[in-house]
C-alpha cells in the first residue's frame, strides 16, 4: 500500500511528475542552476506547421482580428493631437471552449494521446480547465480538472463555479477544493492514482501552443494593414500567454513590436488567504500570479517552467478591477460583443497605451474570452458587493483591492500604471541567489540568468554584487 500522507506524496513529487509529463528535464540542465530553455523548446515542443495542423483538427486557431472602431473613436477624442493609436482585438473567444487556452490544451492533449496516456489532468481554476476538457472530449481521452474554488464556508467565486460547469459539460470530472497551495498534494495523488498525463500550463507544449497566436496576429495584421503591429498587449498571470505570443511574433519575423504585459492590480490580497479569497473579483490575470511568476517562473507545477516572461516583456503595466469592468461594458455597449472580464485586462491596458501612442500606430489586444453566468461584470460585481466591497463610479485611482471597486466615469480616466521592470528583474536575480544558496553561480549560470531576465551580463553581475554586500 502506497503511503498517501502529505509528506510522503510530496516526497515522491519528482517521480510522479516525470511519469506524468514524459519529459526528463535533467536533459536540459547545465551549470549549477542553468538550463537550456531554447533547446528544450526546440526539442520537446512542435514546429509551427505541426501545431497549426494539430490545432486546426480540434477547432482551435484562425480566430478573427478586428478593429474596434467605436472604441477608437473615443480614444481619439480624449488623446492629444497626433496621438491615439488604433486598437485591434484578436477574438480568441472563437476557439473551441471559448478562450486562447484552447491553443495550449490542443498541443498538450495531442501529445498525451500520442504518448498513449488514457487521460489528462490539469490543476486550474481558470479557462484552461474547460480548454483541456474540450480537447480531451475531442480526442477521446478521460479528463480530470482540479480547482481551487471555495473559502472555508464553501462560498465560491461565481467565475470559477461557471468554469466547473463548463468542464463538466465537456464530460470532465471536476475536483473542487478550498483555498490553499496544498491543492498540489491532491493533484499529485490523482496523477499517481490514475497515471494520466499532467497537462500542465507550463510544459513546453502548453507554451508553444500559444506561439500560433502571435504568429497569426503578425500575418493577419500584415494582410489587413500592410504592416506588423507596433504593440501587442497580453494579459499576464503565469506567463504562458505573453511568452507564447511573443515567441510567435518573433517566429513570424516581427522584430520591433513592443510586447506589453498587463495584470489586474490586486496588491495587498494574499492569494492563499481564506479571508482574501472572495474579496477579489478577478481569479486570474492579476498581480497575485503576475509578479511572483515573473520574478521566479520555476514555482510552477513542473520542474522547469516554459513560460519565462522577463525574456520577452518590454513593458509591464497594471490596471484596476474597475477599469476592466468598464472596458468590458465598453466592448458590449459600443462594439456589440459581450466577452468575459478576465480576457479584457489587456484591453483596458491597450486603451491607456493607445492614448500615448501616435495616431498612425496599431496596438493589438491579443485575446478575448467567453462570457456567461458567473463570468460577467454583473454577477462578479454582485458577488463583490455581497462580500463587503464598495462599488462606485469615479476616478479609478480610488480602487483599493479587497475594499473598493471604482468604475471610471469616462474612457479618459483609464490609465495603466507601469511596473518597474528593472525592479522585477532584480527580484528574479535575488530569488535565483536565495533559492540556490548551496551552489556557486558560475559563468554559465550568469549567462543563463542574463538571458532569462533579458539584461546584459555585466548588469546581472553588478546586481549580484550589490546583493552580496
Amino acid at each position, binding site marked *: 500500500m502506497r503511503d498517501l500522507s502529505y509528506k510522503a506524496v510530496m516526497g515522491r513529487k519528482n517521480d510522479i511528475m516525470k511519469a506524468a509529463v514524459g519529459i526528463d528535464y535533467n536533459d536540459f540542465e547545465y551549470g549549477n542552476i542553468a538550463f537550456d530553455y531554447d533547446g528544450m523548446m526546440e526539442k520537446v515542443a512542435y514546429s509551427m506547421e505541426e501545431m497549426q495542423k494539430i490545432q486546426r483538427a480540434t477547432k482551435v486557431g484562425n480566430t478573427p482580428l478586428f478593429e474596434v472602431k467605436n472604441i477608437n473613436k473615443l480614444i481619439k477624442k480624449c488623446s492629444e493631437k497626433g496621438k491615439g493609436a488604433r486598437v485591434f482585438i484578436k477574438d480568441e473567444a472563437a476557439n473551441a471552449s471559448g478562450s486562447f487556452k484552447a491553443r495550449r490544451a490542443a498541443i498538450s492533449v495531442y501529445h498525451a494521446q500520442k504518448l498513449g496516456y488514457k487521460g489528462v489532468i490539469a490543476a486550474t481554476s481558470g479557462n484552461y480547465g474547460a480548454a483541456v476538457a474540450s480537447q480531451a472530449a475531442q480526442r477521446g481521452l478521460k479528463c480530470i480538472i482540479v480547482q481551487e474554488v471555495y473559502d472555508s464556508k464553501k462560498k465560491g467565486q461565481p467565475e470559477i463555479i461557471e468554469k466547473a460547469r463548463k468542464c463538466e459539460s465537456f464530460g470532465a470530472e471536476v*475536483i473542487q477544493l478550498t483555498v490553499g*497551495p496544498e491543492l498540489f498534494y491532491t493533484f499529485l495523488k490523482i496523477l499517481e492514482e490514475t497515471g494520466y498525463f499532467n497537462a500542465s500550463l507550463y510544459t513546453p507544449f502548453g507554451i508553444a501552443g500559444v506561439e500560433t497566436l502571435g504568429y497569426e496576429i503578425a500575418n493577419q495584421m500584415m494582410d489587413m494593414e500592410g504592416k506588423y503591429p507596433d504593440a501587442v498587449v497580453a494579459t499576464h498571470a503565469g506567463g504562458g500567454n505573453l511568452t507564447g505570443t511573443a515567441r510567435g511574433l518573433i517566429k513570424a519575423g516581427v522584430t520591433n513590436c513592443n510586447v506589453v504585459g498587463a495584470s489586474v492590480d490586486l496588491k495587498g490580497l494574499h492569494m492563499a488567504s481564506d479571508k482574501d479569497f472572495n474579496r477579489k473579483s478577478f481569479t486570474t490575470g492579476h498581480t497575485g500570479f503576475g509578479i511572483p511568476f515573473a520574478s521566479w517562473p520555476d514555482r510552477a507545477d513542473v520542474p522547469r517552467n516554459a513560460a519565462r516572461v522577463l525574456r520577452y516583456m518590454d513593458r509591464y503595466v497594471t490596471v484596476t478591477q474597475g477599469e476592466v469592468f468598464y472596458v468590458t461594458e465598453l466592448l458590449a455597449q459600443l462594439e456589440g460583443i459581450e466577452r468575459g472580464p478576465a480576457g479584457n485586462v489587456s484591453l483596458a491596458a491597450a486603451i491607456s497605451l493607445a492614448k500615448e501612442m501616435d495616431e498612425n500606430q496599431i496596438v493589438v489586444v491579443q485575446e478575448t474570452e467567453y462570457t456567461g453566468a458567473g463570468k460577467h461584470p454583473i454577477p462578479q460585481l454582485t458577488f463583490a458587493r455581497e462580500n463587503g466591497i464598495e462599488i462606485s463610479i469615479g476616478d479609478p485611482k480610488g480602487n483599493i483591492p479587497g475594499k473598493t471597486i471604482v468604475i471610471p466615469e469616462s474612457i479618459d480616466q483609464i490609465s495603466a500604471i507601469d511596473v518597474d521592470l528593472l525592479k522585477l528583474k532584480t527580484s528574479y536575480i535575488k530569488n535565483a541567489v536565495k533559492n540556490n544558496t548551496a551552489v556557486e553561480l558560475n559563468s554559465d549560470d550568469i549567462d543563463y540568468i542574463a538571458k532569462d531576465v533579458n539584461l546584459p551580463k555585466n548588469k546581472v553581475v553588478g546586481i549580484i554584487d550589490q546583493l552580496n554586500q
Partner: protein
Amino acid sequence: MNKAAKGTWVEIENEVLSASERAPQVPEDTKTTPLMMWTRGFMIEESASIGDFVSVTTLSGRIVKGKLVEISPRFEHDFGKPVQELLRTGVNLKEEITK
C-alpha cells in the same frame, strides 16, 4: 430530498488535511481551517441519506468515497442583480459616442 438512490448524481465531501496538518507556508487565517474537497458522481450504494458515507463513480470513471452532502447538486451561479453603476456606464457611453 434527503435520500438518494443508486445511480443518482450526488456530491461528496472529504477532508484532505485537518487544520493542524496544513502546509507551513499557508497564511494564518487559512491555517485555522481544514483543506476540504468535493467531488461529484453517480452514487454506487442502493440508498443513502445526507451525511452518510457513500461511494460514487465520477465522470472520469474513478470510484471515490466520501460524505454525501448534496443530492442532484445544482449550479446556482447566475447573472447577479442589476448593477446601477454599470447601467449608468452604458447610458453615458451611448451619449459620448454620438457627441
